[in-house]
């Protein structure tokens, strides 16, 4: 039987992961290498919606060098699931990004995978795809 304490623990775990996710989006917009260094796993595989691939080092470098500039990221988390020490988040995001001098407004669906390691959540994989443009009214 599930105890109240275990429900509370589950809620806390989900809240901690959502906080990490939101912090990660903010750190991207702020190109904050220090925060991203904590939130991204060393083995990160980052698949952008255009098929570009990044490691942790190349992703942080692209932000700090200005090669890729996230002007804004507004994410909506749709599901959060746990498989032991792994958390899987699925969501949607509206992203304005300037990449190699070209600005784009993207509406994407994403999945990211987080692993509980060294006492904190770390994102180990990200994959996104572009959602169809909303129909014009």
């Amino acid at each position: 039987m599930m105890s109240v304490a275990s429900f509370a623990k589950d809620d806390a775990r989900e809240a901690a992961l959502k906080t990490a996710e939101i912090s990660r989006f903010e750190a991207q917009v702020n190109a904050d290498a220090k925060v991203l260094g904590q939130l991204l796993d060393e083995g990160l595989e980052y698949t952008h919606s255009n098929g570009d691939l990044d490691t942790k080092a190349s992703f942080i470098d692209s932000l700090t060098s200005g090669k890729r500039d996230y002007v804004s990221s507004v994410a909506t988390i749709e599901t959060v699931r746990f498989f032991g020490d792994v958390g899987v988040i699925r969501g949607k995001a509206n992203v304005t990004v300037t990449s190699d001098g070209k600005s784009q407004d993207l509406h994407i669906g994403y999945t990211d995978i987080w692993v509980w390691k060294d006492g904190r959540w770390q994102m180990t994989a990200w994959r996104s795809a572009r959602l169809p443009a909303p129909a014009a009214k």
Partner: protein
Amino acid sequence: MRSRLLLLLLVSLPLTVLASPRGDEASARAALLARFDAALHADVAALDKLLADDLEYCGVSATCSTKAQYLDSIRSGTRKFRSLAPKVDRVTLFADSAVLTGKVYAVSIGDGTERNVDAYFLVVLAWRDGRWQMTNQGSTLLQPKPKT
């Protein structure tokens, strides 16, 4: 003495069950390849075993399906393939799950036309009921190679 042995057995039994080994990298890879093969051959019975009940399947258009919706699409032929050639690049094992990434080169059939759909995949397998079950797949279209 006999009752002590019985007690020891009763105490250790749950530990033995808890310690039952999760599948290894090879079995995770095999489960995913079997999933692609079952999709290619529209083998709904095999897919039913290979997919977790809480599956979230997100295609290259970023629209997502449940297990029931995915199986229906295979059964009805809405989702149909001429070929599916997956290549698993990385398998990472965790306590109760495995994360696999790679590419799949697909020829899908829809409305009488064939379409090349080459994509990256990110898959999560959960170890349940003594086997790997796919609980999440997300895909991203591969960037077309620049023409030289």
